[in-house]
């Protein structure tokens, strides 16, 4: 299932498009440990591609293979159709922004940005280097700090110096290793939009490594969710969120309720999932690959579940799932509240509702009997 987005940019859907980067059956081993397991992946020019996964899933290894610090044990990596195995980092049209920023402490901001240019084909042309550095300083709004040393500027400014330095040589591909990890939350959110803006203006292909799913969703055109050296799903953020292909992805991205159960054979594209003794089965859209009955997981996001003191009358009869339960916990987050509801069979369900009214006027409280409901297309049935 593909969730439609109105961005217009989708080279991955075009069979004619040539990828900028192609991983072909790449495996990387460190001793007996397999960091990357038979990876095949295409990344297209001008993409903002996110590698997302828990630490140790191999995302950093992919990045280091692109930068040239590691070579694949098996398989090939192509950049613009050329195999780049064995090409040292200094000869690749690829630059990297390091997690620690790796700013040279003995050089000023200006010299940090000029460092790569002085070792490029414009090495002899001092005026061109100066012009390019000024351009980068302007792009990252650092003009005032050009003469400072890295220890004389704040964390957010250091992050921008690192970005300016890695963009100065106008690389074909920019790698960002947890670029915002060291910033506090508010600054991180601002910087995410700044990164997207800079990516769009320079037209550079960005590959970002992150363990923060919110960050990946915000900045990326496509997200690859990784687990133990394998890519589990590559899709647009909306597809990853609304149509995860497995319990792992569903659980990794955002909050979700999982009902494990036994599904009946699909009829007219819908199946019924029996998940608890004495409760009506969940009616849900069956995935295309499902034939006959199967053990499945039904996954539904908390904000797709409605909660109310009575059985909701407005839902179409026969297409809705509704259950009685008891509120056992309420987490008040200001704009929304999360209700933890326990159903008769003991299954716990998280429900999120926007707080459109002020607190005194809300009716649901602890220990209250409530109804939760959702339509037959609100969740997904996962077979793995």
């Amino acid at each position: 299932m593909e969730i439609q987005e109105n961005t217009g940019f989708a080279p991955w859907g075009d069979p004619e498009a040539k990828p900028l980067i192609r991983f072909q059956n790449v495996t990387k081993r460190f001793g007996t440990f397999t960091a990357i397991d038979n990876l095949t992946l295409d990344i297209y020019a001008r993409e903002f591609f996110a590698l997302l996964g828990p630490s140790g899933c191999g995302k950093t290894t992919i990045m280091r293979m692109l930068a040239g610090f590691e070579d694949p044990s098996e398989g090939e990596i192509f950049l613009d159709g050329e195999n780049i195995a064995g090409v040292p980092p200094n000869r690749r049209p690829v630059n990297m922004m390091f997690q620690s920023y790796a700013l040279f402490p003995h050089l000023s901001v200006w010299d940090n940005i000029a460092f790569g240019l002085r070792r490029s084909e414009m090495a002899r042309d001092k005026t061109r280097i100066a012009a390019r550095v000024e351009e980068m300083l302007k792009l990252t709004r650092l003009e005032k700090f050009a003469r400072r040393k890295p220890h004389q500027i704040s964390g957010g400014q250091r992050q921008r110096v690192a970005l300016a330095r890695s963009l100065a040589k106008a690389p074909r591909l920019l790698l960002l290793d947890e670029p915002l990890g060291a910033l506090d939350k508010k600054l991180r959110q601002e910087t995410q939009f700044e990164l997207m803006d800079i990516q769009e203006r320079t037209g550079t292909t960005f590959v970002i490594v992150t363990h923060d799913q919110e960050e990946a969703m915000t900045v990326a055109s496509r997200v690859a969710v990784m687990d133990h050296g394998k890519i589990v799903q590559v899709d647009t953020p909306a597809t990853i969120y609304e149509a995860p292909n497995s319990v792992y992805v569903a659980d990794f991205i955002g909050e979700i309720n999982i009902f494990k159960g036994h599904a009946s054979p699909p009829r007219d594209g819908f199946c019924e999932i029996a998940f608890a003794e004495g409760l009506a089965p969940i009616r849900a859209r069956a995935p295309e690959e499902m034939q006959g009955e199967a053990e499945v997981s039904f996954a539904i996001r908390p904000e797709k579940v409605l909660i109310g003191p009575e059985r909701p009358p407005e839902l179409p009869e026969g297409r809705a799932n509704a259950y009685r339960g008891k509120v056992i916990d309420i987490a008040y987050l200001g704009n929304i509240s999360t209700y933890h509801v326990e159903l008769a069979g003991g299954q716990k369900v998280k429900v999120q509702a926007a707080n459109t009214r002020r607190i005194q006027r809300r009716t649901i409280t602890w220990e209250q009997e409530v109804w939760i409901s959702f339509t037959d297309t609100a969740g997904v049935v996962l077979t793995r």
Partner: protein
Amino acid sequence: MRRLSWFNLTSLTLGLAFLYLPMVILVIYSFNGGKLVTVWAGFSTKWYGELFRDEAFLKAAWVTLKVAVISSTVATLLGTMAAIVLVRTGRFLGRTLFSGMIYAPLVMPDVITGLALLLLFIAIGLDRGATTIVLAHITFSMCFVSVVVASRLQSFDRSLEEAALDLGCTPLDAFRSVTLPIIAPAVISGWLLAFTLSLDDLVIASFTSGPSSTTLPIKIFSAVRLGVNPEINALSTIMIAIVTTGVITASLLSKRSIARRAREEQEAFGQ
């Protein structure tokens, strides 16, 4: 300022006296006018004059300085290289043996190092003189340099070097333009350490020196054996003055740079 309690005051006085009383007495007697070291015969600077007219002492001082500069420079070069191999190359066959062998001279008694070197020089037929002292000093001070530089390299962020490679440096260029400037303080203090060790080494130098070249420590030691002479007091006072000036200058410089850094950081975050 807080007032010191009488207990703290006493222990401070006793401690300082224990450390510095001998030196103070030495400095005072260096201005003694008389020939006898322990009998005060009025203030005079005549022994300083005598010292600067004594050819043998001046020659020994010159040899010492030459040996110290050459040996500490070569030791710094070799010691830094050894440190890089130890910290950077990761595991290789014989790494443990190699690191053990580099650090062994740290704990080896000087007498044994000196004797071993003497036997080596005799075996290969090398005439003893300034060259053999230089070689011997390189051997034993190299490991000190290597310890100092290795500890700095261990805390060095490898991604700085990777960033340099990523931005177009060859590995050699990356070392020259990023790693070396950053570890420079450790390399310099390694050099200073090697220099000091060479300056005051008596045991190894006496094994490896020849009749043509005597270092200052050997000269002083042999002069003292014939009886302490006021000239030695004068010489020692000069050495104390040099060392004190060096230490005070170094501490003032580092204090100033720390203060400047703190001020600059405050400015950066204050805006």
